[in-house]
């Protein structure tokens, strides 16, 4: 009953005309940006942050949440029509979505993606409503030692679950923490790594790094890979109608993948990408016609699409209840919230219920908007894919520049943005994952603060991190998350020898 009353309170906020507009605008902008090949939810979120300056925090988060799940959905359109996923979380959708489009069933694939996303998102919100307050109650007992260990786990999980080298992921995370502690140390007032310039006294704004490492680096990468002038032909859309038999066929996979996706999203490090692959492979194994997966099976579109949207909503659980993001995208969301003056965490449910319940209620509306927007309007929105690439690239560049300048009014930050863009390009070319860097950038300073507060409480005794059971277990899981990927190939080799 309490949850119902809270949800009604959330609806009273989400249904305010201005917030309704933000839900719609967020979902629409997310869908459009997510659709553009190369620009994923992190770029979409980073590009939209400047719009939240001066906004009420609940409105700002409602807008950003819409952008996030809109971008996840938008990615499926380019996956299906172009076989060029705009978002990593929709790669699995292209396995069967693109073959369907080649068979003249692009409309059907898009409709399945829309229904699956809607159900995945909606099921996941119900779970979010049930799980988040429970986790919030547990998190109230967390002290600085537990928070430090939780953040270590968040970082190691993101590193170990990325498909790139473990060492490179850890390097990216360490560099992210290094950037985060630049400027004046708030506990002692000491300057650290400012190189004697006043521009770095407040450290480096996370938006400069996020836009540089993701959006600007993506433009550079597209320029390098010949994205300047070449256009990719896209498949015609065709009918969006589904038969009764087809609806029946996809119902169970959507239900299963929605639940799986939600719990994958809650785990730190796992998110829409892993959720969608897990959903896809689970359905492939369960299906009697598993051999037709990859050749245009409708269940191969339904499963990853419901899982990725469910995971996207699931990833809000650690962000909103613990204040610790579990992925690059939610790290950018946390950064946006901090800019708006809100610190998510267990206290937020009590101190700012308007933000928490407002965004939960807005997700219901956002999912309805996504469905309404995507079914009738998708042929129209898909025309964005026909936009000349040279014009698109130069527009993304100006959005990045204005985003940074509008926040800091600093030419120095524009030059820093350029530097981070080139760093992001280098990282991409040489296989360094960017998500750990951005997550570490957001968590680094808070991590140091928690560590120092914990040590202050213990009088400098480091055993505080293992004396507290929750902290100890979190550190053990963090260590295992790093060790297991190293041990796995050795075990495989030993098994193969036997």
């Amino acid at each position, binding site marked *: 009953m309490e949850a119902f009353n809270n949800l009604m309170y959330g609806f009273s906020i989400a249904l305010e005309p201005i917030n309704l507009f933000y839900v719609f605008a967020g979902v629409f902008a997310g869908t459009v940006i997510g659709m553009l090949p190369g620009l994923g939810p992190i770029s979409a979120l980073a590009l939209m942050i400047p719009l939240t300056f001066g906004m009420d925090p609940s409105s700002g988060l409602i807008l950003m949440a819409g952008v996030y799940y809109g971008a996840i959905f938008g990615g499926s359109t380019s996956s299906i029509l172009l076989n060029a996923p705009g978002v990593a979380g929709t790669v699995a959708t292209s396995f069967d979505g693109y073959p369907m489009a080649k068979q003249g069933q692009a409309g059907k694939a898009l409709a399945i993606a829309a229904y699956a996303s809607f159900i995945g998102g909606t099921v996941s919100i119900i779970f979010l409503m049930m799980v988040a307050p429970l986790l919030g109650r547990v998190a109230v007992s967390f002290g600085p030692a537990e928070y430090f260990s939780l953040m270590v786990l968040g970082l190691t999980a993101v590193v170990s679950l990325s498909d790139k080298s473990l060492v490179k992921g850890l390097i990216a995370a360490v560099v992210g923490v290094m950037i985060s502690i630049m400027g004046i140390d708030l506990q002692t007032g000491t300057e650290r790594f400012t190189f004697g310039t006043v521009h770095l006294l407040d450290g480096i704004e996370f938006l400069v790094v996020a836009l540089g490492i993701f959006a600007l680096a993506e433009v550079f990468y597209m320029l390098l890979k010949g994205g300047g002038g070449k256009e990719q032909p896209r498949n015609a859309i065709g009918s969006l109608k589904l038969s009764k038999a087809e609806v029946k066929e996809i119902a169970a996979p959507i239900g299963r993948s929605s639940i799986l996706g939600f719990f994958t999203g809650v785990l730190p490090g796992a998110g829409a990408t892993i959720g969608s692959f897990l959903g896809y492979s689970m359905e492939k194994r369960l299906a009697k016609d598993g051999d037709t997966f990859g050749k245009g099976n409708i269940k191969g579109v339904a499963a990853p699409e419901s899982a990725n949207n469910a995971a996207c909503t699931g990833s809000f659980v650690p962000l909103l209840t613990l204040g610790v993001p579990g992925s690059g995208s939610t790290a950018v969301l946390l950064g946006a919230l901090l800019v708006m003056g809100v610190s998510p965490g267990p206290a937020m449910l009590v101190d700012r219920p308007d933000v928490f319940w407002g965004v939960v209620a807005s997700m219901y509306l956002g999912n309805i908007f996504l469905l309404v927007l995507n079914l009738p309007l998708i042929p129209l929105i898909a025309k964005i894919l026909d936009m000349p690439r040279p014009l698109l690239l130069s527009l993304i560049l100006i959005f990045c520049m204005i985003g940074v300048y509008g926040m800091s009014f600093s030419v120095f930050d524009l*030059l820093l943005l350029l530097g981070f863009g080139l760093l992001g390009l280098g990282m991409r070319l040489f296989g360094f994952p960017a998500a750990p860097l951005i997550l570490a950038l957001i968590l680094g300073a808070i991590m*140091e603060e928690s560590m120092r507060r914990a040590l202050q409480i213990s009088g400098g005794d480091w055993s505080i991190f293992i004396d507290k059971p929750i902290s100890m277990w979190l550190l053990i899981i963090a260590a295992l998350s790093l060790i297991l990927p190293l041990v796995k190939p050795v075990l495989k080799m030993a098994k193969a020898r036997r």
Partner: protein
Amino acid sequence: MTRLNSNQIIALLLALLAVGYLAMAWQIPTFPLPRPIDSDLFPKVLGFTLLGLAVLLFLEKPKAKDVPEALDPEEQQQPLLLRPWSRVVVTAITLAVYAVLLVPVGFVLTSVGLVYGLAAYYGYRRHWINLATALGVVLALYLTMTRVMGVYLPTGVLPI
């Protein structure tokens, strides 16, 4: 002498960065009041961790995805300024020039120049559409930021 692979070159650069970082960490002044840990401890831990990771990276063999893919040979045949790496360098220089000119020349002129100029450079030949898009988007951004959101943007040489 055997040639260093990409991981080893990056590892050496990172090791240099870590050493420089550690040297700076050692120069962080001590806080006058005694505290369990001071401002320099965390940076020192980070510096040594990066150094250790650089050693591990030096020993790690690069996988196929860790090495940049070969660029399109057709693109490499183009005039120097239009080759892939030239496009990146020209774009980076243009952005740096944009940053420097933004305040003295103004947001509208520099931004229209940036959007129009880069789109034309990347190969967009419909100049009127290019100009109209650049003007439309930049003016819309300018008016939204200055009139709706109350964010100041430099006017420069234009009286708006």
